[in-house]
Structure formats: C-alpha cells, structure tokens
C-alpha cells in the first residue's frame, strides 16, 4: 500500500461522481422548466405553490434531503438504493435552482420578442420552440454552467449515504492508511481538475450559440 | 505644514516664473495617441479656457497636469517641481502635487456615503492633517461662499446637480490649491443649473484663482478667461487672448470649429 495505490483507489470513484452529477443535472434542468412556468403563472395559487416549493427545496441542506429520501422514504415506503436517492435528491434541488435561473433568463429576453412572435401568429408551442426557447438556453448557459460545477462539488454529500464516489473512496482510504493529508489533497485536486473541462465546454458552447442566436 | 515647494505660499515663487509649464507632452493609450506634443505655459492668476471638438484630448490634458493620467512623454512643471514622463515621482511629491491642484469633474463625483460637510472635510483631515474643528470651520466658510451652508448635514443625493457641482468646487478649494482644473463642469447640467455653477467660477476667477477650464460654454470662455486654447486631434491649433481667438481665429481648423458651434 503506497501513495500510488491510494490514488488508484480514489480514481475508482470518478465515474460515479460524474454520472451522479450529470443525472442530477438532467433531472433538474428538465423539471426546472415546468417549475419555472408555474412560478411565472398568472394563477396566484399556482405561483404561490411553486414559489414555496422552490424556497423549501433551497432552504434545506442537501444532506438532510438525501437522508429524508434514503432513510425516510427509501427504507419504509419505497426501496431506494443510495445512488437513486442521491440522484433524486440532488435532482430536485437542481430543479429549484434551475427554475430560478430560467426565471432570470426569461426576464432578460427582450419583451419585443414575445410581441414579434405574437404578431407573426406563432402558436405558443412554436413561439417557445423557435423564438424564446433558443434564447432562453443561450442566456441561461453561463449560470447553468456555474451551477453544474457547484453540483459536482455537492455530489460529495452522496458519500454520506454510501455512494462509492470520490469523497467516499477518499474517506475509506484515509481511514485505512492514515495518510489523510495526501489523500484529501488528491481528492480536492481531482474535483478541481474535473471542473475545468466543464468550464471550457460551457465557454465553447456559449460562443457557438452566440453565433447562431445573436441578439 | 509640509515644506515641499508645491505647498509653499505663492509669494515665494519668482514673479516671472510660470506657475505651470507643459513641455512636449504626449499621451498614448496603446497605439492610440490622444495628445501629440502639447506645450503650454501659465502665469499665476491667469484663467485659461480650453475648447474644441470631442476627442481632441482636452480632458486628457487636464488629467496629465495632476497626473491622474501620467504622460507618456514630456514634462510637467508646477511651481518649480518637475515631473518627467517615464520617471515616476516619489509618492510624497505626487501627493503634494495633487494637493496643490484642485479638480472639478463633469460628473461631480461627490462621495454619496458621506454628508456634504464630510465630503469637504475628508481630504483636509487626511491629506492636510487638519483637526476636525479646523476642517469643519474651513468647510463651512467655503460652503457659505458657494451658497450652500444649509446643506452641510445632508447627503449629496438630496442636492440638485448644480448644488452638487458647487459642493464639489468647495471640496476642491478646501485644500487651498494653487491651480484649479475644471473638466467640463457644466456639461452634465441643465442650462439653469449650469448658470449657478458658472457664477461661482466667475467669482473665483475674479478673486485671482489660477484656473484652467475645459468647457463648451463659449460665452463663459470668452468673457471670463484671459486666454483661450483651441484643441483638435491632440494638438493646440490656436492660442491667444480670448477676444482675439474667439472673434478672429487664424487657423483653418479653429475657424471650422468656431463656425460649427456658432450655428447652434
């Protein structure tokens, strides 16, 4: 057992970290759309419900949500494995945050876009798909990318309910070898390295989209 | 009291020495040359107006005098102390220079988080070492002089633009400068509010303050200043007594500019 095997043991956790982040983001980015629509609904009751939901999802620490889903729901009512619990928990929190990001992006889209789309008699569906949607995606992209990097780091909480991702591996290696300093430094560095391609990808996509959806 | 020559009383200066001298001053931002060789000389008590089209380098010239923008080339001499381009002066010389030169900005730049009185006192206490009582006494006298003593305890946001600019003038005067620079002081103001500011400036000039005013107010330039400079494309294209320059410009460029403003 030496530093190299320690490192190898930690690297084993990478796939789960990445997959968990991606799935949670996929859930959140998707659910965030109807949640945002509800948040901006003209119906007072619907709007209140969505606002309360978003507020509650964001006010409670992720680990508590994961415990509620895994130990609470997962043990009694449904059988949920640690990974699914983590994915659902982080996914719901992401949905709340993405709803707010979409809301910010929508308010940044020039009011004239809606009027122009209406003047061209586009149906609401086409208005969204062809006019508002693409702009929404482009404007949300920077905030969403920042959020994904945050989500990557939040995925570490899944280690507390037994998901064998990077933080979990780091903990167990450090407990076995007592080389905590190197192990945790390596784990931390790993997270930073993984976040770099996300930042670059976001910038590249932003540039590409800017060319196609120029304001 | 600092013994640096810039803070010395004006009387110590030889009568025939200019208060301010600019020698071959150039200012470049990257590849863009904003000032292309400016020479200037000013006596104590003179009032100089600088006019010209936008982008001619008027504001930059002012900023080179108090080193807000250090010149790329050339020399600035104020009250016997010279600052060469490319050779950064010691900090205390720079601070003394800035205390000897007061500046009034187009956007006033009053400190919004301080009361009017504190705005005028801050530099006195920190840069001149005056006690709070001294500073407040001087401040109240200056505020009375510009007609705004009653605003002392208010915040700038509660004052009109014209009032804010007059307070800015009081703030600059509080340091007892030898030279006052005005960078388009009324351009951001409604004409009526601008009048009250011009009145204060006129009174200042009549009291013997050495002033350089960059302005678009042609009437003010002609009536209050001794000399007028017309700048275009980073150079001085015309210079002379105000009446002569304004009525009878010699250069083509100056003539073109003056005709353009006359027609407005």
């Amino acid at each position, binding site marked *: 057992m030496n530093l190299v095997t320690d490192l190898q043991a930690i690297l084993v956790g990478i796939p789960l970290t990445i997959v968990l982040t991606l799935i949670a983001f996929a859930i959140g980015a998707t659910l965030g759309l109807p949640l945002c629509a509800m948040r901006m609904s003209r119906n007072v009751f619907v709007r209140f419900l969505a606002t309360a939901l978003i*507020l509650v999802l*964001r*006010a*409670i*620490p*992720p*680990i*508590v949500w994961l*415990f*509620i889903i895994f*130990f*609470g729901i997962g*043990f*009694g009512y449904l059988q949920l494995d640690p990974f699914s619990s983590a994915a659902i928990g982080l996914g719901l929190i992401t949905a709340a945050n993405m709803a707010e990001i979409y809301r910010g992006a929508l308010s940044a889209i020039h009011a004239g876009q809606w009027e122009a789309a209406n003047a061209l008699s586009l149906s609401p569906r086409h208005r969204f798909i062809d006019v508002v949607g693409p702009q929404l995606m482009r404007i949300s992209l920077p905030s969403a990318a920042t959020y994904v990097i945050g989500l990557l*780091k939040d995925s*570490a*909480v899944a*280690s*507390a309910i037994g998901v064998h991702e990077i*933080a979990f591996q*780091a*903990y167990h290696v*450090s*407990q076995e070898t007592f080389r*905590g*300093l*190197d*192990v*945790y*430094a390596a784990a*931390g560095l790993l*997270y*930073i390295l993984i976040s770099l391609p996300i930042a670059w990808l976001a910038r590249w996509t932003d540039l590409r989209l800017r060319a196609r959806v120029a304001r | 009291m600092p013994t640096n020559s810039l803070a010395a009383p004006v009387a110590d200066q030889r009568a025939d020495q200019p208060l301010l001298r600019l020698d071959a001053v150039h200012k470049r931002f990257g590849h863009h040359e904003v000032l292309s060789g400016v020479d200037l000389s000013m006596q104590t008590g003179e009032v100089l107006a600088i006019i010209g089209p936008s982008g001619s380098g008027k504001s930059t010239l002012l900023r080179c005098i*108090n080193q*807000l923008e250090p010149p790329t080339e050339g020399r600035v001499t104020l009250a016997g102390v010279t600052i060469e381009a490319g050779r950064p002066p010691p*900090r205390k010389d720079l*601070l003394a220079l*800035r*205390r000897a*030169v*007061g*500046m009034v*900005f187009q*956007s006033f*730049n009053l*400190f*919004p*988080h301080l009361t009017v009185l504190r705005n005028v006192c*801050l*530099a006195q206490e*920190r*840069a001149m070492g005056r006690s709070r009582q001294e500073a407040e006494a001087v401040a109240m006298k200056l505020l009375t002089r510009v007609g705004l003593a009653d605003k002392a305890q208010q915040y*700038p*946001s509660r*004052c009109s*633009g014209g009032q*804010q600019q007059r307070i*800015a003038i009081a703030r*600059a005067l509080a*340091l007892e400068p030898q030279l006052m620079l005005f960078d388009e002081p009324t351009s951001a103001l409604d004409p009526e509010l601008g009048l009250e500011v011009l009145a204060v400036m006129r009174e200042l000039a009549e009291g013997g303050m050495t002033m350089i005013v960059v302005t678009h107010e042609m009437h003010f330039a002609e009536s209050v200043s001794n000399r007028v400079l017309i700048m275009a494309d980073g150079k001085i294209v015309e210079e002379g007594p105000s009446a002569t320059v304004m009525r009878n410009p010699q250069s083509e460029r100056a003539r073109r500019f003056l005709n353009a403003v006359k027609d407005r």
Partner: protein
Amino acid sequence: MNDVFAFWGEWFPTLVAGFELSLEVTVVCLLFGLPLGLLLALGVQSKSRAQRWTSLTLVEIGRGTPVLILLQFAYFGLPSAGLTLSSFTAAGFALAWCTGAYTSEIIRAGLEAVPFGQREAAIAIGLDQRDVLRYVILPQGLRVAVPALLGFAILMLQATSLCFTIALPEVVSQAYIVGSNTFRYMPIFLLTAMMFAAVCIPATICVSVLERRLGRHEAVP
C-alpha cells in the same frame, strides 16, 4: 399523527441543542472568514506577485474543492502533518477557508461596482491609496456586497450540516443518532429539515427585501 407530534416533542430539545452548535459554528466561520475574504479580495489584485499568487491559490482551492473534502482534510488529513484539531476547530477552519474564498469574489465584485469617478475624485483631492480604499472605496463597495454576503451566510449555515462527518454533534448528527436508535428516520429528519427551513426561509426573504431596498437608494450620478 399525534404519535409523530409526541415523537417530535420528545426529541426537540436534543435537536435544538445540536442546532445551537450549528449556529455557533456558522458564527465562528463568518467571524474569521469574512475578514479573510476582504484580505483575499485585495490580495488577488495586489502589486506583489507573491501576494497575488498566494491569494489566488487559497481562493481557487477554497472555491474549487467540495466543503466536505475541506472538512475531512482539516479533521482527518492534518493529523498526518502533525496538527490535530478538535471537530469544532476543524469545522471552523475549513468553513472559514471556504467562506473567505467565496466572499473574496463577492467583495471584489462589490468593489468593482463602485463608479470609477469615485476613485479619481479621491485621488485628485490628494488622498493616498490606503485612505482612498478605507474612506471611499470600501464603504461603498461593501455596502453593495452586503446582500450577497448575507445570502452566503445562509449557505454556510446549511454547510454546517456536513460537519456530522467529522464527529461534530450538530443537529444532523443528533438526528442521525436518534434515527438509528428509534428507527424512525423519517420523522426525525423531517424535524431537522423544518428547523433549517424555519431559520433559512425567513432569512432568505429578508435578504431579498434588503436587496430591493438597497437598490432603491442609488446615488445620483
């Protein structure tokens, strides 16, 4: 249903004791982290290369590493280097580092939001660099940063929930113990969630209101 209320009543004091500790850790991390954030905000713009690089490194690690890793590094990692910290100290250290890193960016943005003319005017009236910062730039810049800083403080309170992994007896740790003893995980974690919500939701609303209020009193240009 009554059963659940009775359960909550029985374990409420235990959770509250834990929550008090959560609040204490939050206060400590802000007490050390916010000044650190100011130092780092100025440090990353320093003329000294050494200061700049040190500050940048501290910020990038504090921001780029998950809080959980920072916590476990402080508690499990440092002992290998000869420095053994208690749970509370390790938690304070790690969270203060995280706070300093994130708030340095918030403060930097606040300082940059101060109009450039303010700095020019301060320089023109002969104030030296230190006084320009102290009397003109910081008062205005920090005011701009306050809502974001308060929002971050709320996030730090939530982050203390991770301290149970380093044996700190804060609220989540207490809830977990109760849960594993009684097997009634759902009710106890719901109670924990409600405690956080009871503090964080009003706090979030207050910050939004504050943000809107501060935006109204903009200085006249």
